[in-house]
């Protein structure tokens, strides 16, 4: 009996020893920048280009090598008045929205109090009591469309089309998400960490290019600041694809050699919160186009 007791406790010790190893050590991590250094608002200090692009209606003229300083805002209206695939998506979004909202429940579901869509886009990303997590507007559109028996997968063309239509009612209103407390603050902090985390086969963070290399050439491309970038999504890309921010993040990750994550995943939503907070004060504008 004594022998059995000893062998039993020895077994416990051995098994706990094995199990304790992986949890004792924190995983080794590298970050591109001091993750605490970026202030959460559209900020003229980062890259010193805000002065050029803050007013979409009065962008200065820049030549080819300086064009990046406009942060691609010259693709937006009113400076660029050409019709593009984003307008086509807007039309489809309007048609789908009217179908979805035939009984008025869809607009209520996405957060409109009286059926008016003005300002609804500015409520997102937000914490959903129902889902017990932070959600972007496209995730909510998917959920609310399902209640109307329409499948609008987060990231799909039709989901983004409805997102553009809804967001258009908030055009020229500044982004204003509050990340000072609660689940959105936690999400913002996680998003900042994910943005700065070196990952993938090239050990690159988002910040490796969009903070450390801003204004330098990556062959034919010039990375720009991530400030003021969240207010024109979903956008129509020149390769003829309508992309939500999360779809774009899967492309960013792949281009950098990082295994992409699911659309609507917590980490991509966290990055969306981070980028949205970095656009606070900058006005919405959809439909938009980017290269």
């Amino acid at each position, binding site marked *: 009996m004594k022998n059995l007791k000893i062998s039993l406790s020895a077994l416990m010790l051995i098994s706990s020893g094995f199990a304790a190893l992986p949890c004792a050590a924190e995983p080794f991590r590298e970050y591109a920048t001091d993750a605490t250094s970026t202030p959460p608002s559209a900020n003229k200090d980062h890259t010193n280009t805000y002065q050029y692009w803050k007013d979409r209606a009065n962008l200065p003229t820049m030549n080819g090598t300086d064009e990046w300083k406009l942060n691609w805002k010259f693709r937006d209206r009113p400076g660029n008045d050409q019709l593009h695939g984003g307008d086509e998506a807007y039309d489809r979004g309007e048609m789908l929205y009217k179908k979805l909202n035939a009984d008025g429940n869809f607009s209520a579901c996405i957060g409109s109090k009286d059926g008016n869509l003005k300002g609804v886009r500015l409520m997102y990303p937000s914490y959903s009591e129902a889902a017990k997590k932070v959600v972007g507007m496209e995730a909510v559109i998917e959920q609310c469309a399902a209640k109307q028996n329409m499948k609008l*997968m987060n990231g799909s063309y039709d989901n983004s089309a409805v997102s553009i239509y809804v967001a258009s009612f908030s055009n020229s209103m500044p982004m204003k998400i509050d990340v000072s407390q609660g689940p959105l603050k936690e999400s913002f902090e996680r998003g900042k960490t994910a943005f700065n985390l070196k990952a993938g086969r090239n050990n690159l963070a988002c910040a490796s290019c969009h903070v450390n*290399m801003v204004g330098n050439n990556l062959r034919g491309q010039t990375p720009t600041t991530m400030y003021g970038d969240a207010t024109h999504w979903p956008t129509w890309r020149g390769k003829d694809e309508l992309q939500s921010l999360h779809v774009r993040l899967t492309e960013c990750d792949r281009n950098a050699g990082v295994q992409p994550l699911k659309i609507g995943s917590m980490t991509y939503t966290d990055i969306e919160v981070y980028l949205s907070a970095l656009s606070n004060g900058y006005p919405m504008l959809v439909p938009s186009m980017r290269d």
Partner: protein
Amino acid sequence: MRGLLVGLAATVVLQACANQAQAPAKVAEVAPVEVKPAAVWPAGLPQDALYNPEGKNKTTWPQPVKNSGELKYNEHARDLSKWITRSSDDMRSSIMPMKVSLNGAPLNGDAARGKEIAMNTGRGNCWACHALPGDAQPGSSGPSLIGFKSRGYSDDMVYQFVYDRRAVNPNTVMPPFGAIGNLNDQEVRDVVAFLQSLN
């Protein structure tokens, strides 16, 4: 008796660790790929990765289809799952900075093969950041490599730079090509030979 107590204490610790490992609660999402046998999902790869264990290259990406409420999933050019992702659920470690040396042995690299790796976006992609001879749109994010030979670095040093620059400069943006398994050892040697040939 004392042994038993220690054993019990260890079990408590074990329990705490198990809880810690499972910490992030999973919320059900619309899964683009059905994960059937748990065994083929790579150990440590978080569940929110876009990964199809039954696909050819495993790593997948979503493509919106015009006038459709569904996404089309395509295969990426390579399996990216062995490197860490951005997911908060990813508890795998990054690769630590690695000191390497040729230890006096010859480099044994092929400059022509090295050029094929360095000036190829799908392989080493050195030219994304560095100017190299003959590139019409040179990168400017890293120092120019034109005339690199004249800078007089030893093969041993350049081997370290390409294998893992972090061992020399902890704040570098440059990928640790050898240490992270992006290029194999021979490919690193070939790139070094190419750089040392740049007059």
